[in-house]
């Protein structure tokens, strides 16, 4: 004997259709929501300050004042009260004798004497500055003579390389790129690469001078050079640049001896 169920169920077919419709609706709603309020994912580019090529302000020129800051200058000190108590002056006999009837005219023109004083001070400052500059130049000359280098301020410069500062700049760019691409499988990988940059700041050639043989490291170095070359600026004086850099996992150093 078979048991007759309470009611023959319609089955799950209708529910399946309804469920699919609901899922589609939810999916379309999500799409619509995403279009209405798109996720604002912006990858902020990292900007580096080129410390090497930053213009250095003359320390004697005083602190720079930005435009518009004039209003924020500290207020002047309050004026002295009119009835300020006067200190008693010591009367010296010499002063007494110096006082003549004609001396009143000099006292009567204080602006003239101020201008003369300022002129004299400016002259003295100018002389002092000239002396200082002369001393600095003398020191530099003696330094160049002692080192035999053809470039001022670069004790190890050979004089043939085009812009030692530019080497540091290239090193900095390479370092940034290398931080992103670095990978190696050996223990102490090392690689020496010679880089050629044309007058327009374009990487023309890169040659591997020496390598420890770590293939992954070699690839990462070459990738770093390519990556960094996108941001190279033209060398100073629009001359060709040639530099040798030693790449290690610890960092990049310019090989100045070569």
């Amino acid at each position, binding site marked *: 004997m078979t*048991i*007759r*169920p*309470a*009611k023959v*169920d319609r089955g*799950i077919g*209708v*529910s*399946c259709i*309804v*469920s*699919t419709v*609901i*899922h589609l609706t939810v999916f379309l709603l999500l*799409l619509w929501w*995403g279009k209405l309020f798109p996720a604002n994912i912006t*990858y902020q580019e990292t900007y580096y300050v080129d410390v090497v090529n930053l213009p250095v302000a003359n320390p004697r020129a005083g602190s720079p004042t930005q435009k518009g800051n004039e209003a924020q200058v500290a207020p002047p000190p309050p004026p002295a009260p009119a009835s300020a108590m006067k200190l008693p002056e010591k009367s010296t006999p010499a002063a007494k004798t110096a006082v003549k009837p004609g001396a009143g005219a000099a006292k009567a023109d204080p602006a003239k004497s101020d201008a003369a004083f300022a002129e004299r001070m400016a002259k003295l400052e100018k002389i002092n500055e000239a002396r200082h500059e002369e001393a600095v130049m003398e020191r530099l000359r003696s330094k160049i003579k002692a080192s035999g280098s053809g470039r001022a301020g670069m004790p190890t410069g050979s004089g043939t390389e085009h812009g030692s500062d530019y080497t540091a700049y290239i090193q900095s760019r390479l370092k940034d790129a290398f931080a*992103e*691409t670095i*990978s190696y499988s050996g223990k102490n990988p090392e690689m020496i690469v010679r880089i050629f940059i044309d007058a327009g700041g374009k990487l023309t050639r890169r040659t591997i001078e020496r390598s420890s043989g770590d293939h992954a490291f070699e*690839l*990462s170095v070459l*990738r770093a050079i390519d990556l960094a070359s996108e941001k190279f600026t033209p060398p100073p004086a629009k001359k060709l640049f040639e530099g040798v850099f030693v790449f290690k996992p610890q960092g990049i150093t310019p090989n100045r001896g070569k």
Partner: protein
Amino acid sequence: MALLTGTGLIVKIVLLVLIGFSVISWAIIMFKLFQVHRANSESVRFMDFFWKSKRFDAIASQVDRFANSPLTVLFNEGYGELKKVVEGAGASEGSALSTDLGGVENVSRALRRATNSEITRLEKYLTFLATTGSTSPFIGLFGTVWGIMTAFESIGRTGSASLAVVAPGIAEALIATAIGLVAAIPAVMAYNHFQHKIRVLINEMDSFSTEFLNIVQRNITGK
């Protein structure tokens, strides 16, 4: 949308499986909600009608009004069996006592069988909900692990470890876990809810069976 389109083939398959699980489990949830709700409400109405009625044949004539209640199945089965027993007893007058005892047992067995069949009907598809609830997060996790593996592989290929390279791959991979959880959470909640409701219905069926047997024994056999 980019998160879905940017994933690999395996992750896409995982996502499709999970969406399939979700669609079916929601279909079951809706179906069961409707079924259990009707069964509950009609059982209450049937019990009310049952206690108000004086005769079994009067109830049997009106039982179609409560077609969705499992109690009506029990009543139909019990009443049908009882009719057969009584008819059988009428045919053999000489052995009334033995037929009476055997008749109540027959009715009891019929009620038990009807109860079992109703439990099976009510619990139908619930296994799928339990399966969805327990396996979907793991399927999603598998998709995520696979996605992260491919993301790391592409990171290794490009040679860049910046956040802009790492983050999208991992985000694409994590969507599998998210959809796995979206499928699993309602399934587990619904499973527990329906289990409770069905347990209540089973208790009602047991009570009704006992009451039915008591009435049969009191009125038909005179004990």
